[in-house]
């Protein structure tokens, strides 16, 4: 479901609240899916969906924070927004540290709620774009020969062609040829861009 629409996943044990929040989202043109418990959410959502999650903090069984952890451990990348009746500071700090978008108190004003949901959706989109670019970069990186990758490493490390040639025990001219191919395969217009791409691929270590 790559190009599926963005949806807001609501998890709350109170059906009335669930229904009301879904309506609010719908009234502003957002699509909402409701879940009465964290377990139900985990059963029905695979992790490939796009959108964001709105979690009630206090629920019987798994609570909101536990669900957040469960999602992380399953590699679900949906941005999470917490709603709570009486949030205390330690809980909110813990949630934010784990990457929660925000921590809102019930009853929540529509403007605040919708703005935050949109923010979460935007963050999800950004993350998705980010992840897609990383994938592309990794694909390009995979197209490089071992020698080209060695040359790339040298370029990214900021060494001169001559130094790279020395390091690898090959001619400076050969380094230039490899370097040209690397720029081409990585679709980089400049050395600076190449460095950025290598960074994204997590290549620059040390």
């Amino acid at each position: 479901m790559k190009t599926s629409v963005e949806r807001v996943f609501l998890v709350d044990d109170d059906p009335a609240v669930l229904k009301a929040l879904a309506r609010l989202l719908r009234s502003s043109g957002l699509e909402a899916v409701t879940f009465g418990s964290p377990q139900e959410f985990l059963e029905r959502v695979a992790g490939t969906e796009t959108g964001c999650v709105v979690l009630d903090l206090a629920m019987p069984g798994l609570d909101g924070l536990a669900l957040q952890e469960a999602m992380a451990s399953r590699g679900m990348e949906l941005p999470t927004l917490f709603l709570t009746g009486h949030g205390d500071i330690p809980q909110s700090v813990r949630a934010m540290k784990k990457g929660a978008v925000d921590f809102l108190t019930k009853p929540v004003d529509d403007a605040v709620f919708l703005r935050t949901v949109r923010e979460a959706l935007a963050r999800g989109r950004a993350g998705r774009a980010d992840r897609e670019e990383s994938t592309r970069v990794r694909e390009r990186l995979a197209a490089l020969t071992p020698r080209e990758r060695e040359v790339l490493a040298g370029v990214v490390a900021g060494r001169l062609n001559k130094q790279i040639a020395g390091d690898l025990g090959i001619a400076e001219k050969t380094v230039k040829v490899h370097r040209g191919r690397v720029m081409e395969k990585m679709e980089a217009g400049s050395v600076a861009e190449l460095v950025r791409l290598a960074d994204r691929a997590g290549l620059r270590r040390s």
Partner: protein
Amino acid sequence: MSWPTVLWSMDAAACLTLATIHLAIGLRRRAAANLLFSAMAVAAAGMAALELVLMRSPEADVHAAAVRWAQAVFFVLMVCLIFFVRTYLRAGRPWLAWTIIVVRGITLVVNFFSEPNLNYSAITGTRPIRFLGETIYLTEGVFSGRTRFAQLSSLLLLIFLLDATRTVWRRGDRRRAVVVGGSTMFFVFAAAVHTALVMQGGVQSPYLISVAYLGVVAAMAYELTFDVIRSSELAKRLQVSDAALRESEQRMALAAEAADVGFWHYDVDQNRIWMSDRVRVARGYRDGESVDFGRFLEAVHPEDRALVRATVDEALRKGGDFEREYRVIRPNGELRWIAARGRVESDPRSGGVRLRGISFDVTPRKLAQLEVERQRSELTHLSRVTMLGELSGSLAHELNQPLTAILSNAQAAQRFLAQGDGHLGEVREILGDIVEQDKHAGEVIRRLRVLLKKGEVDRQPMPLSDVVRDALELMRSDLVNRGVTVTTDLPPDLPPAIGDRVQIQQVVLNLVANACDAMEGLERRERRLEVRTEANGPSSLRVSIADRGPGLTPEESERVFEPFFTTKAHGMGLGLAVCRTIVTAHGGELRASSNQEGGATFHFTVPLAAGGPA
């Protein structure tokens, strides 16, 4: 020595003496019997005097007059005797009595119209004889047949006396029958026979009528005197018992005063209430005012009147003993508590029903009792408020949920409306939901207010499972926050228990909160609570709250209910003590025990509503 003169004079004197005595008694006591006797004794004395005249006079004229007058005297004697028997012995046939009087009356009239008198057609002279050493004169003359009339009346008199004596004897008054009836008959008979013999000349003797009648007079005097003695004895005895009664009454009054007890009785049929003076004064009744039940109720506190009336009605219906405490308002406005105890009696004389009993002022005890109750209720309320304070977060959340739904729904509706009329169906649905959620919030507040209320204890039949569920409902958020999973077994078909809903909820809240505290240290998934209601024998229900905490040692199982005993870092240690007070006041039991699989169970019983299972 002229014996006849002496004896006849003594005879007359004795009769006159007795006559005088009984005249005095008769006048004083207004007793007809004594007066009649007195008249008869005078007549007997008169008879003695006439006989003496006859004995001592040699003149024929004197004899003729004396015999004539003797008839008159004898008439008086007879009439008095008859009336005496009628009034004193209450016997003798009236028609016979009147017949005798009429017959004798006729002979008396005849006596005065015949010469020389009734008994003789002619008196020829007198004859001297020696009698008891004296010369006396007997009448000489021609005996008249008219005397038979007089004799007939004497015979009738005898029959009358015989009949009267028999009546008295049958009545069981044998002594009187013998003494009065027997002796009278004997002497009347003797006098009649002797007189008849003398008149017909068969016996040379003076008339002895007065002597015979002296016997009658003596017998009667004996009886009457006996009565006088007896009545004076009775009077003396009465005086003694009267004094004893007064003494006992005084003692009673003293005891009543010392114990501050009032006496009363209530004649139901006549609707009259008598009460001792202190009570009368205390209730403000006027001197001599007659108090009926309505007037009595006026002094009773208006709220207690129906109760008092019902108690009296029930007592009259069931009989036996009864008891009631009620309030009265004194004339000065002061309120007093009165305890009354009584018994239903039937009056043996009138056959009517009456209530008799005592009443006493129990105001100080009642006030102390009310004070204890007030303090207990204060403590109960305080403990409830404290506990609700601890639950406030949870309660706020319970309210917050519907408020959240309401706000979001309302704002969604606003947005839909801003987009035009296309969403009216949705908006209508939203409004319906808002109403429902508002009601839900109201319900939460109502439950809370009930628990916070400082009301009087109100024991009513109640569905125990619902009451327990309500309490759990209030704690729902708290339980969620503390990660406690609750399993319930609350069957809806249990018979109703009797108790104060609020206080029973308080106990449940307390026990559940304690159970949660006990499981604080466990893993979340281990924090399990089981709540159940079930029948406990034929007359009560049981509520059990089982946790998985560390449990209790046997010693702790009892000590947890002591005031100020606590295992928690915070808390006063009053919660369970108050719970036990509440449950005990309901007639139930609160206990703690350890579970086999770990943890503790608290269970308490609540009695079934009257009548038990339907």
